[in-house]
């Protein structure tokens, strides 16, 4: 019996890709959250330990990671709201595609606001 | 090989088959054997509606309906059958409603009704609103509703099993006391042969429109039922009567329901003239199909066709409100958009007659029992639907009467088959009943490769039939067709298939189906040659009037016995059967 899974990638549209992104971002945030709680727990060990670990967050690599994380959180949150609208608002399903592009635009705006400031904090004066 | 024992075996799961199954499975152990998943049956393609004199929107009664049916069928209708159908139509519609069919509704919440070609009040005075409908998806809803109820009743289906042979206890042409015994089937998924023993068999295998090239019929409508019945010695009735539906999408044959005209659509020629006013002053665009189809073909012949090749006319809906079109004709307007790129709101749709419905088929009486000849029945054999010829459609079927036919006579056949099964024992089958089928398949499968293809033969057949046995026929064209078919049959004897596998061998099945088509096409052409008159869907240019003195009778085509000589060098012997006339004496048809 042939595998049912073979073949080309399914060419879904906004609905499918937003779901993929939602899933990936959710998973990423969750993993980060696990780590984040652990590192925050270091405040119980000693201020030095905490500050040392948290110091890593202030490096460039982590700074960029932070950007990705914030991007993921914002997307996940906005798209989560879109999903809630699709589920509970009677016109949500009709407008899902518009809602998706709304999410993208709001995401871009928020990121555009956050990025310069964050980078400024990271590298800046 | 596997053997199954049932009381009733139903061949086909279209409207007729499933309506029969709903009755029969309540009363007897029933198997429905179908080459398609039930919901793929072509009943689902029917659009316009199903007539019954419910009188929900205006005065109507079943006698007017009977009259219209008889007149529409050009008096070749068996009037006892037409009465049964028109009378039981009302319950048939109400039954479907109770089963859940979502009919369109009147403001009072009753089943809505609309006009349809040939349906009139007061014996032809004016069009009447008689067709019960669900948008332009009535057939779809009927098929779904029947399937849903089969699921509810847990009817046993054998899906994608091809019935390839029917078994009786003898040969109905020669033996006495012949009765039904079973069917031989081919399981598509495995290539295995299954024999179903049965006390009653119901043919409900649909039409055979694929003998023509331009047709509204599905690829799978290859007349398997009538062809295998014929090969086993059962006669076929009135096969020369084939209906050409006026409004097929030009070049494609996809149907645009008569409901388009029922809702106000108008046929126009290249000069945008409403030409039906000339051919049928009273009913105009809603005259019976044979009249309209011929009028259209005539416009094209006389040079008033539209398009670059001047080979079609227009169906004009542009004067209708888009909202009205969307509510009442959503699917067919979508067909025009999808397949021809025409926007029906603003542009007229190119249409031309398309082969649509075979009035003829396996002869039955009003209980659905199959006839061995003009008088005797074969106990345990039943037929219903397009495959059968009761004959309620005579020379020309009225729109909506087929969905009615499958429900009324499907039900009758189902009940009769189950009742018969309760009274008799399962007949014994000798060893090796499947051998002819196995040999047929092996022959097709094992032939050495050839240049020629099954598809080429089929295309040649369809083009031959379109050119010679379509809306207009003459002695000469019928003879051309017969000679052509003889040649094609020779080619068919040697042609090879390519797929040699066992599982899902549709290549092989198409080859078998072509064999059926060739047999049926020959019967159609021979019948057309011999009926030297014009009546209903059969129009002979060399005999352009109806001739009741000589031809007010059904044609019966029998397969010749070994050694017997057939008509015109074919393996077919022609006979007749009287038409049942109860109260409507034949009159000239005017519309």
């Amino acid at each position, binding site marked *: 019996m042939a595998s049912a899974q073979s073949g080309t990638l*399914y060419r879904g549209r906004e609905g499918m890709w937003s779901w993929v992104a939602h899933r990936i971002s959710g998973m990423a945030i969750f993993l980060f959250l696990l780590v984040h709680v652990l590192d925050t727990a270091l405040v119980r060990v000693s201020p030095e330990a905490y500050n040392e670990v948290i110091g890593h967050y202030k490096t460039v690599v982590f700074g960029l990671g932070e950007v990705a994380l914030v991007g993921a959180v914002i997307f996940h949150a906005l798209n989560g709201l879109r999903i809630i609208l699709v589920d509970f608002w009677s016109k949500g399903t009709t407008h899902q595609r518009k809602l998706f592009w709304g999410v993208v635009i709001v995401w871009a705006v928020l990121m555009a606001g956050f990025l310069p400031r964050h980078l400024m904090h990271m590298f800046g004066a | 090989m596997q053997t199954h024992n049932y009381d009733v075996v139903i061949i086909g799961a279209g409207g007729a088959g499933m309506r029969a199954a709903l009755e029969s499975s309540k009363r007897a152990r029933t198997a429905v054997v179908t080459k398609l998943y039930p919901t793929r049956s072509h009943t689902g393609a029917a659009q316009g509606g199903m007539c019954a004199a419910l009188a929900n929107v205006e005065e109507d009664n079943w006698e007017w309906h009977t009259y219209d049916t008889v007149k529409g069928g050009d008096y070749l209708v068996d009037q006892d059958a037409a009465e049964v159908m028109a009378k039981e139509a009302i319950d048939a519609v109400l039954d479907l409603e109770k089963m859940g069919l979502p009919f369109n509704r009147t403001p009072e919440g009753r089943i809505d009704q609309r006009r349809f070609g040939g349906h009139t009040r007061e014996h032809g005075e004016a069009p009447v609103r008689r067709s019960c409908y669900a948008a332009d998806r009535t057939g779809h809803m009927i098929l779904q509703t029947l399937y*849903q109820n089969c*699921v509810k009743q847990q009817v046993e289906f054998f899906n994608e099993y091809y019935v390839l042979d029917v078994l009786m206890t003898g040969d109905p042409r020669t033996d006495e006391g012949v009765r039904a015994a079973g069917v031989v089937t081919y399981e598509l998924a495995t290539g295995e042969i299954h024999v179903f023993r049965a006390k009653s068999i119901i043919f409900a295998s649909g039409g055979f429109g694929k003998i023509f090239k331009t047709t509204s019929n599905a690829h799978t409508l290859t007349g398997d039922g009538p062809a295998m019945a014929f090969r086993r010695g059962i006669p076929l009735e009135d096969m020369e009567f084939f209906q050409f539906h006026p409004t097929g999408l030009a070049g494609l044959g996809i149907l645009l329901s008569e409901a388009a005209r029922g809702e106000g659509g108008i046929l126009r020629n290249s000069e945008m003239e409403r030409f039906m006013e000339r051919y049928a002053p009273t009913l105009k665009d809603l005259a019976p199909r044979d009249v309209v189809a011929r009028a259209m073909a005539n416009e094209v012949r006389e040079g008033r066709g539209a398009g670059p090749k001047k080979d079609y006319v227009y169906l004009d809906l542009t004067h209708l409100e888009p909202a009205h079109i969307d509510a009442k004709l959503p699917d067919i307007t979508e067909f025009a958009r999808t397949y021809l790129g*025409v926007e029906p709101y603003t542009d*007229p749709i190119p249409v031309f007659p398309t082969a649509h419905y075979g009035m003829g088929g396996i002869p039955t009486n009003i209980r659905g029992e199959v006839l061995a000849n003009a008088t005797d029945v074969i106990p345990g054999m039943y037929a219903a639907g397009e495959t059968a010829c009761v004959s309620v459609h005579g020379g020309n079927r009225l729109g909506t009467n087929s969905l009615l036919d499958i429900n009324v006579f499907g039900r009758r056949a189902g009940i009769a088959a189950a009742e018969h099964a309760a009274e008799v024992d399962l007949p014994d089958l000798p060893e090796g009943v499947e051998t002819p089928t196995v040999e047929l398949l092996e022959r097709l499968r094992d032939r050495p490769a050839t240049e020629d293809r099954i598809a080429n033969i089929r295309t040649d057949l369809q083009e031959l039939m379109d050119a010679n046995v379509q809306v207009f026929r003459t002695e000469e064209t019928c003879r051309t067709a017969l000679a052509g078919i003889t040649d094609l049959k020779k080619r068919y004897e040697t042609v090879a298939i390519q*797929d040699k596998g066992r599982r899902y061998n549709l290549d092989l099945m198409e080859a078998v189906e072509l064999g059926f088509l060739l047999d049926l096409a020959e019967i159609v052409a021979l019948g057309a040659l011999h009926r030297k008159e014009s009546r209903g869907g059969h129009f002979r240019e060399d005999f352009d009037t109806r001739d009741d003195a000589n031809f007010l009778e059904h044609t019966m085509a029998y397969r010749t016995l070994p050694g017997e000589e057939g008509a015109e060098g074919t393996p077919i012997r022609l006979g007749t059967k009287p038409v049942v006339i109860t109260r409507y004496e034949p009159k000239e048809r005017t519309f």
Partner: protein
Amino acid sequence: MTAVAEKPQADAGEIPSFEVTMRIARFTPEDDKGVHWEDFTVTMHGTDRVLDALHEIKWHIDGSLTFRRSCAHGVCGSDAMRINGRNRLACKTLLKDLDISKPITVEPIKGLPVEKDLIVDMEPFFDSYREVMPFLVAGGQEPSRERLQSAEQRERFDDTTKCILCAACTSSCPVFWTDGQYFGPAAIVNAHRFIFDSRDDAGEQRLEILNSKEGVWRCRTTFNCTEACPRGIQVTKAIAEVKQAVIRGRV
């Protein structure tokens, strides 16, 4: 008459013929080649559909190419397949609407076991359908005439009556691909058809059936089903309505 002066622009056969390459996922259970791509180049015409191209191949090049089809105009639901990565009916997809400069990929629908070439096993699909009680259950005294239903009540479930059980939706659903137990959009659509029928009395039973582990909650609103449905049914909307009905505990 409004249309007298107008000339329709589209004519069958007007668009010239063209060459197109069909890249088809082949699988024969009787050899050990597994699933593999095969290319066929055919000459097609104006209004030809993908189904016509498949026929051209089957009838004139390779008779063993196997696929289901019947009505050839999008009403029987036989020929759902994955064309250029999306589920469509082959008989409703015009070649000229695809990019014919590249090969057109044709694969069986996803998530159901492939039996041969483009044919999949439909039984799991129909099993789910049968499980949602897809039939009218009307209690009470059987009326002698029809049951009354207002035009608005009839309109309430009109969309979902159009389903032709082609499986394009269910086999486009990412949840169904990974979890074949999920009822799938088609079954929910057909439950919706009865849940919202004013004549029906078994809505609560159906809601119960769909309020299960493999029921409506598995749907993650990816909308692939809605995009795939050849009948234009608002599938995700129907699912959302069923979810709401389950939450409220009634229709």
